């Protein structure tokens, strides 16, 4: 565009000089001159996102991660990562005058003596639980719909890696306050590292700076891992996850006009941006509502960690529950021989078991493609019922993990149901290997039955019962409603101009006129 030769005198002249798209157009021109953004930018604005509620699960993870970063930065301004002993002088009266670690003192301090500190701490903790929970559910969606198939195997692996790092960082994070519950968790983690054959005790000594509880180095080490190293890797993986999503484009469910070679949905700008930004606010809101109303991890009640103290019914955060459950139901098989000891009762459930689970998850896309001999591109999603074997395998995995998860509360269950603890233990020792097999066959059978059923997945029409003048009753199917498929329109490329018609024209017509 040629620059104006004379200085504009009036606002009107100035506006005209900017060209037909005004200030925004001028900015686009300036940026495009330097960065060449126009072509790619237009494609990006027109990028299509398929609509389905299950595609929001990953967004929950993304947005809770945003909340984690924001609240985490706030907490890091007040938290002191030090095991140094100080006398507590804060406003929590029962603790006054006690000798506690600076980490614990500052955690209680930021909860009670920093404005909105407790809200931020609880929101941070809730966000972590929601982050991992939504990852798990998002992953189940990806698994059951076969979204991990070619070409998306790498993104599946990136996702599993983020899950693992998320669990690790969650553990590191809830260990930082140095309270009685988290300290017990660190003690257990030390013993788990120690259980690794050959190198275990060396590793444990290196990580903790000596024999348990170390020389006070574990808190600062966990801190730097928790706030810098792991989040940095997570952010890198997140960028890769989203970058691959943009490059490979989102999958979609089968439906009218949807093929392996296109994406049908709403455009990035403005529709998707509006909806997803709104969702960001809503996820943040739910986390802060929980942080404000639902108490979580009341460290001032647990007290400072002392290695010789413990409380009853200590349980880790939910995402560690499956490991704790596996430790509980494992028989006491310690291998001793040739002057060496392998604590299999720890090594198998706490190292081998999670290692096996994560490895199965990572290689699953390749296991499946080898089994099905299917190397084609897949951009259309499966319905779970159409893949009975995969759905069965997923059901078995979820049942296995669910069972060991519930096994982490054997003592609480024994108390609650008033049955001997040993019954509860043996129930889980039997249920953990048996129920996944049952789940597999049950899911397999249900899938096959659903596939055989007629009219499944189709919207039912309402039945209208009417009474004639003579008192006779009859039942008729209602007329097809909008959305039953009769008047669905074919998808079109995103137009530049979208003129919304006045309501009087739109009413009843069922269509909008769009200029293109």
């Amino acid at each position: 565009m040629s620059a104006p030769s004379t200085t504009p005198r009036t606002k009107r002249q100035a506006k005209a000089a900017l060209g037909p798209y005004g200030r925004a157009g001028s900015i686009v021109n300036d940026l495009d001159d330097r960065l060449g953004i126009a072509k790619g930018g237009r494609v990006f604005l027109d990028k299509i996102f398929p609509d389905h509620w299950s595609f929001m699960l990953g967004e929950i993870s993304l947005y809770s991660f945003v909340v984690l970063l924001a609240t985490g930065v706030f907490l890091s301004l007040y938290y002191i990562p030090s095991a140094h002993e100080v006398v507590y002088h804060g406003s929590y009266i029962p603790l006054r005058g006690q000798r506690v670690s600076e980490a614990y003192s500052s955690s209680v301090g930021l909860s009670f003596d920093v404005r909105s500190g407790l809200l931020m701490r609880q929101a941070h903790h809730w966000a972590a639980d929601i982050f991992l929970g939504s990852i798990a559910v998002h992953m189940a969606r990806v698994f059951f719909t076969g979204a991990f198939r070619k070409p998306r195997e790498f993104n599946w692996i990136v996702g599993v890696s983020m899950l693992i790092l998320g669990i690790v960082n969650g553990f590191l994070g809830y260990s930082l306050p140095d309270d009685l519950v988290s300290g017990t968790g660190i003690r257990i983690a030390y013993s788990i590292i120690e259980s690794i054959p050959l190198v275990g005790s060396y590793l444990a000594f290196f990580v903790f700076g000596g024999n348990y509880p170390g020389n006070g180095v574990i808190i600062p080490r966990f801190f730097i891992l928790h706030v810098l190293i792991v989040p940095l890797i997570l952010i890198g993986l997140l960028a890769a996850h989203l970058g691959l999503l943009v490059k490979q484009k989102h999958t979609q469910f089968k439906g009218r006009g949807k093929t392996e070679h296109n994406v049908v949905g709403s455009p990035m700008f403005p529709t998707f941006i509006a909806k997803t930004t709104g969702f960001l606010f809503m996820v943040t809101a739910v986390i802060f509502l929980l942080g404000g109303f639902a108490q979580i991890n009341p460290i001032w009640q647990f007290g400072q960690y002392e290695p010789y103290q413990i409380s009853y019914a200590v349980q880790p955060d939910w995402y560690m529950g499956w490991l704790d459950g596996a430790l509980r139901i494992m028989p006491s098989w310690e291998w001793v021989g040739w002057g060496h000891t392998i604590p299999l009762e720890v090594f198998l459930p706490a190292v081998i078991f999670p290692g096996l689970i994560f490895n199965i998850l990572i290689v699953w896309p390749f296991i499946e493609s080898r089994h099905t001999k299917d190397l084609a591109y897949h951009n259309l999603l499966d319905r779970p019922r159409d893949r009975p074997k995969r759905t069965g395998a997923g059901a078995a995995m979820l049942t296995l993990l669910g069972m060991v998860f519930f096994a982490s509360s054997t003592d609480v269950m024994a108390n609650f149901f008033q049955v001997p603890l040993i019954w509860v233990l043996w129930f889980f020792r039997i249920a953990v290997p048996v129920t996944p097999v049952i789940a597999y066959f049950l899911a397999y059978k249900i899938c096959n039955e659903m596939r055989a059923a007629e009219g499944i997945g189709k919207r039912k029409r309402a039945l209208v019962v009417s009474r004639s003048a003579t008192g006779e009753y009859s039942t008729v199917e209602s007329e097809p409603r909008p959305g039953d498929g009769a008047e669905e329109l074919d998808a079109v490329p995103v137009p530049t101009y979208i003129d919304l018609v006045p309501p009087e024209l739109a009413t009843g017509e069922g269509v909008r006129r769009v200029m293109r």
Partner: protein
Amino acid sequence: MSDDQHEPTRTKVPMPIAAFDDPHLGDAARNPQRVEAIVGGIFVLAIIFIAGFGAAYWQNWDPWILGGTIGAGLFLLGFGLTAWGKYLMPQGPFVEERHVLASSTEERDLMSAALVERTAVVVKRRKLLGGLFALGAGIFGIVALFPLLRSLGPVPGDTLALTNWRKGTRLVDSNGRPVHLETLVVGGIMTVYPRGMVNTDEGQATDQTVLIRVQRTDFTTVPGRETWAPAGYVAYSKACTHLGCPVGLYETELELLVCPCHQSMFNVRNGAVPQFGPAPRPLPQLPLTFDANGYLVAQAGYDQPVGPGYWTRSNTT
């Protein structure tokens, strides 16, 4: 858009209304003005709540008010924006073609050729250089492990097998007071430490020992330990042999020590043999006696490492 030259030709194409496929939403989509009014109202409420958060923060009100105001405000803001996007913005269906991810065969071959040919130049013609460089890089990798790993802590040596209990070490409670015959009532339990180690990490984590007084005065847990429990005072390591949690619960009637972490139960009567749960070994027993002043002391240290198992553990110290 006054400049006619910039006006692309406009053609009318029928577009479905927003939320076209949901009969429950069609009404709202056909009445954009009503939706506008509702979304506007939601935004006004959101503004009130968010401003309320500001006020609550200023007045330093309770956390639930802070969370409630900011939560409600952000939720309404997000809800309004989502509703705006859902009912008042173009929904399509719009379509976009997928690009073929794969390159052409020629392009692939060119890349493979470049990789293979250029590597050949390096590896085949300059084998010595390549080898030396790989050696250097490899040694760097190993050497780099030292500060990354070895600087972090000492090697274990035999420290895992040691405690501070020696022959004649006096048992003291958490306030440093020595233990005598009358310290515990029958059925009583306490945690004891070697004298001088009460407020140390080592004393609290490794040396912690649980002292129980049972009714029988000629108490023998295991044959060969006849003199280890004078006057019914019996002491076991408090570090669970499963994962090192303090074995902090005592069931007086059954004389069972219970670990709250994973419910291992140790029978005090027969040498703390685990009778339930994942713990693989009995808690090591500390042989006790009374010294000349009537205070409890250790006859000797533990006869085996305390706490959980590890590779170099053997059953004697």
